């Protein structure tokens, strides 16, 4: 019997009063010095939606698998309310896992699928039937109890998978790229459903994906991973607007990377000299490292944060429009300025929208929207959480 679980009922008072799952110093290697996960640390707070975001090979899935128990960490601890479960097999952990493709038992019907976790925990038949039916009702599948998985649509299968994982009140839900193979329309509606369910049940979710739009839409916090490390962790707005490294800046959406030279401080912002004798104010690096005058830096500015101005204003540079492309929702400009080609994205209609090839413009940005980046991965000693 699983000693870590007490069967009970989810009540309003238990919302957000779950257990904290913490990962400390997690390392994973499959062989001679080849590490796929390096020194990963994070805490999944009760009721929080935390996403591990990264390209394939970044170690995000391996990390999730270690939390779930399907991989053993080479080093490190996995703590639930302070107890280390790193050596427990998956069947003795109290997590609900949703895999890509949902892995519903094909020969069992919907009700039997949802009951399964309760059955494994020794809940008597009448009880588990009642709780499973209750859960199915809450996800809107009360009429589907006798259907087999192959008779369900993708969205319905997801709801069954989630119901199955939630019914035994796990400490957290672990989702391994569940929406990876789906087309866009379906993905979006299913993303909403997951988010909905999370809010309703107040469950903590650890989510893995490579899709940055998905991560931004669903998460309370995003942990960006590359080459086995967490490079940056924080709320979506922070990670997007104030990326720590070029990788993060480039992975979440597009950005312009502009090299310059640090000159000094001005009213809390850094002053940076760019090419073409331009000078601007930008944010200091996210990891808080100190800069020396004359040091070379790289500044990241998102295309939508660069404004095209018809006249001179604060922090403006001169530029020449190379081309413009109407993209529907916005117009993309490529503008020669600061000694390179900058990408600018403009959504609202303004006198500048009429500009195209060859037209001279002024560009500007708010100091808050430009960010000095720290060095490439590997140079970072510790992933930093941005404290606001």
């Amino acid at each position, binding site marked *: 019997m*699983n000693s870590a679980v007490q069967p009970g009922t989810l009540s309003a008072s238990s919302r957000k009063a779950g257990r904290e799952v913490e990962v400390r110093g997690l390392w994973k290697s499959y062989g001679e010095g080849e590490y796929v996960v390096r020194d990963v640390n994070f805490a999944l707070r009760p009721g929080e939606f935390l996403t591990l975001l990264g390209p394939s090979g970044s170690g995000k899935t391996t990390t999730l698998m270690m939390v*779930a*128990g*399907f991989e053993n960490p080479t080093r490190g601890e996995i703590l639930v309310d302070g107890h280390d479960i790193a050596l427990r*097999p*998956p*069947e*003795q*952990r109290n*997590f*609900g*896992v949703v*895999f*890509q*493709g949902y*892995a*519903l*038992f*094909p*020969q*069992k019907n919907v009700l039997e699928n949802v009951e*399964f*976790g309760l059955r*494994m*925990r020794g809940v008597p038949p009448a009880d588990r039937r009642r709780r499973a039916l209750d859960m199915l009702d809450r996800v809107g599948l009360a009429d589907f109890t006798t259907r087999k998985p192959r008779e369900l649509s993708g969205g319905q299968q997801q709801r069954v998978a989630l119901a*199955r*994982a939630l019914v*035994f009140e796990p400490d957290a839900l*672990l989702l391994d790229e569940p929406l990876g193979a789906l087309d866009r329309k379906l993905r979006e509606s299913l993303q909403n459903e997951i988010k909905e369910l999370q809010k309703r049940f107040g469950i903590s979710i650890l989510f893995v994906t490579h899709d940055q739009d998905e991560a931004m839409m669903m998460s309370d916090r995003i942990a960006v991973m590359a080459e086995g490390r967490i490079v940056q962790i924080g709320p979506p707005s922070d990670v997007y607007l104030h990326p720590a490294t070029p990788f993060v800046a480039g992975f979440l959406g597009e950005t312009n990377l502009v090299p310059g030279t640090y000159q000094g401080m001005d009213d809390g912002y850094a002053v940076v000299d760019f090419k073409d004798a331009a000078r601007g104010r930008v944010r200091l690096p996210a990891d808080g490292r100190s800069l020396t005058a004359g040091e070379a830096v790289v500044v990241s500015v998102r295309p939508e944060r660069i404004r095209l101005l018809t006249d001179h204003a604060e922090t403006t540079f001169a530029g020449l429009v190379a081309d413009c492309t109407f993209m529907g929702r916005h117009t993309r400009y490529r503008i020669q300025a600061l000694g390179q080609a900058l990408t600018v994205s403009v959504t609202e209609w303004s006198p500048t929208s009429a500009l195209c090839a060859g037209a001279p413009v002024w560009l500007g940005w708010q100091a808050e929207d430009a960010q000095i980046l720290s060095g490439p991965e590997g140079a970072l000693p510790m992933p930093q959480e941005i404290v606001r």
Partner: protein
Amino acid sequence: MSASRSLRLSGHALLLIASAPILLFLLLPSLIIVPMALSKSQMIQFPPEWISLHSFVDYLGDPQWVDSTLLSFQVTIVAVLIGAVAGGTAAIALHGRSFAGKGLLVGLIMMPIVIPVVIMALGDYLLFAQLRLLGSWVPIAVAHGVLATPYVFISAQAGLTSELNPALVRSARSLGARPTSVLYHVYWPAIRPGLLAGSMLGFAVSFDEVVLALFLQGANAVTLPVRTFSAIQYELTPKIAASASLFIALALVALGLQALAARKTGRLS
């Protein structure tokens, strides 16, 4: 375009024309057995003189033949059970793993049907003689069990590969299933169809088998094929045709079940 289409059509027709006599050749022996069994005469002949059930009466009235029939069923059922357990567990044990020497191990599992059966028969004879177990039906059942195992293994393995999604095992474990539960809830449903198909094949193989049963026979351990074999060598009587009809009936049943199963899963053979 239509010229080449008609060429292709006639090509197909040519194939069918070429194949027809071959297919007839294939089917002919099976076709004549039952009519022979229904013949009036005391001699085996084809075309037979219709129609009488006396051959079946003779067959069922002969205690030796009846005993052999029952013995064959007994041996075969035990053999299939042995083969199902050995082949099924091996299929699960090897499922989804790759390791150096797996090919060799699988080759070893297949060995009983690759090696000429007379060699197995000799070896079994020597072994069971040593163990002083010759003369009972048990050695035959065990030897047939070994023979049936590869068939079950192949079929079960193929079934597992197609039916078992690896994420299902992880799914079950994440929901709290310990190894026995995983076997019961995940592996058993997945392996059932393949296990059944392989067992059917094993049944046919064991029931029809002559050489092993010949070498391992005893006074009270004469299987139906062995008795039929001996009878054929001495004199062709209608009784033989009656017993042969049983074999045909089994073949038809097996064929029918296979067709049914194929329709269910949408695959052929």
